[in-house]
């Protein structure tokens, strides 16, 4: 029973971490926020579903289509917000992205309808087990992707020239521009990356359960939890807090009450913020 919940929790948590990686980079590297992140996840999931059912592509081919489409959508959003981003007008950015999220949810409902849909992933039907714990191929895919994506992101941000540009802009956008870095381009790149990650999470996490256009909100809530609990912008913290939160949710749901697991996680967040406002993993 405990092992089963642990495996379940790790799969859940890897999904949370996968969802949060885009926001973590957005916050840590660009001090940007995006309250439409959950809705981008939702659009990613529904596009995957549409490409499979309407265009007849297999699941693995549908993922990149959805990811690219949402990345373009993210690019358009960032181009519209360009001035607010360069001014670092956080209050307006929060409100604009909140509005974008609402816009995407309304548009999503019009386009995709109000019925729950199921993404047909071959991995979801592949059952596996370790001892008494059962899991699917989809769960395994989510865990592998989460670790891979965090690894690549960590490497690119910390060890490459692109990473240096991004960190330079994060440190001081004005000064970076003096050194010839085009801050607007860096912000655009970071935002597109973040949107693509949200869509990837939607394409691989969503097949675990039926999808509705209202799921974006729930996903946004999870993103908040992971990002703030980890401490704003701490990449490795995001991975571990995501996994830990998944395990917490699984155990709380199994032994206390599934209805209150999100509220319990938020109660933990409130306590953490009072005791350690900088987050759990931040220095």
């Amino acid at each position, binding site marked *: 029973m405990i092992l089963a919940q642990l495996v379940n929790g790790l799969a859940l948590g890897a999904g949370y971490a996968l969802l949060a990686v885009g926001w973590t980079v957005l916050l840590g590297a660009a001090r940007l926020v995006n309250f439409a992140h959950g809705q981008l996840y939702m659009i990613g999931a529904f596009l995957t579903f549409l490409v499979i059912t309407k265009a007849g592509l297999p699941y693995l081919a549908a993922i990149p289509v959805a990811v690219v489409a949402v990345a373009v959508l993210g690019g358009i959003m960032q181009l519209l917000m360009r001035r607010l981003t360069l001014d670092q007008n956080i209050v307006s950015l*929060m409100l604009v992205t909140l509005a974008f999220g*609402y*816009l995407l949810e309304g548009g999503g409902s019009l386009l995709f309808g109000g019925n729950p849909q199921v993404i047909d992933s071959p991995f979801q039907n592949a059952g596996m087990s370790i001892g008494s714990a059962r899991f699917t191929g989809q769960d395994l895919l989510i865990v592998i992707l989460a670790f891979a994506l965090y690894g690549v992101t960590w490497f690119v941000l910390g060890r490459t020239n692109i990473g240096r540009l991004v960190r330079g802009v994060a440190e001081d956008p004005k000064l970076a521009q003096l050194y010839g870095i085009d801050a607007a381009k860096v912000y655009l790149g970071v935002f597109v990356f973040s949107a693509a990650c949200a869509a990837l999470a939607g394409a691989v996490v969503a097949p675990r359960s039926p999808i509705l256009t209202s799921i974006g909100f729930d996903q946004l809530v999870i993103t908040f*939890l992971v990002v703030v609990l980890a401490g704003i912008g701490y990449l490795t913290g995001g991975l571990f807090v995501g996994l830990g939160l998944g395990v917490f949710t699984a155990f709380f749901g199994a032994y206390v009450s599934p209805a209150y697991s*999100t*509220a319990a996680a*938020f109660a933990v967040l409130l306590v953490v*913020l009072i005791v350690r*406002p900088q987050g759990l993993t931040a220095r």
Partner: protein
Amino acid sequence: MTNAVRAGRAPAGTTTSDGAAGRSRRPGPGTRVTGWLVLAVAGFLLPTLLGGSTRIYTTCVLVAIFAMMSYGADVVLSYLGEVSLGHTLFWAAGAYATAYFTVKSGWGPLPSLLVSLAIAALLALLVGLATLRTREFVFSLVTYATAIIGLTVVSNVGGLGGSDGIVGVPLLTLPAIGGSYVARTDVDIWPIAYVLLVVVIFFIARFRRSRLGANALMTQMNPGLATTMGVDVRRTRVLVFVVSAPISALAGWLYAFQRSYVSPDLLSASFLLFMLTAVILPGRRQLLGPLIGAALITAQQQLASFGGDVDKIVLGGVLALVLLVSPNGFAGLGRLLVRRRHPAAEASPAATAAADE
């Protein structure tokens, strides 16, 4: 009839711009008071002037309720400069407390009003203390978190009706000379809604001129300077939050009677987006801003609705558009136009204020 409206509008413009710029030519106190009185009377007669149909009365009542709800968020957004994503919690707390105590405990409207306001203030104190050391997006995320905890609680607690909510809120009955005043329809609710709205606007006007209002603005613009001047920044933030919550709760109280039921949808994103848009659309820090914003959005949703999903697109689209084109709302747009046409006019504050109209 038309004269009354015209007479009401002229002073409205002067007083709004006066409040916004603060430095423009002030009319004498007598003129201002008269202007406000004429505006208040004209506002009260507005549903009659618009034809007096039940639909118009319903729309006007909803405008008043939603405007009060938005004024709660306005206090935090305009004067503290923080985005509270948790004001639906106070609004829902007001409505839920009212429904709970009138339906389950058989209380009258006035005791339930007092309890609603007290509960909202207490919740705001707790949220305010929890967010004491957070700013900007962390503050927004945590206030959002409290609204989500609230949503989970009201959706799951049996005593609060779960996802069905609480139905059968009795008619709003207030003690009056020679018996009692029973509000059976929106026509009967209108005078109550209107008086409360006027009280709220009066309260906001006082807040803007109060020490707390000034401290809040200073805290927003330069926390370092505020501290140097002896302002306790954290105390100010918590106090402003505590002041703002009962305003939204008051709106919730009336909404519970107007709709005669409460349900978890009070905590949905649509009410949150509504209050933020109502503040942002006319421009922050305008005394009548949230009222104008609420009137525009409610009129669209009540009289020109395209269905839930398209209304979402309209609300989200309008908010995004305003912030992208002119982050200061209509007021900023006016200023932008004046600057384009007469670059020199920008120097004169009076011209800026005039552009607000």
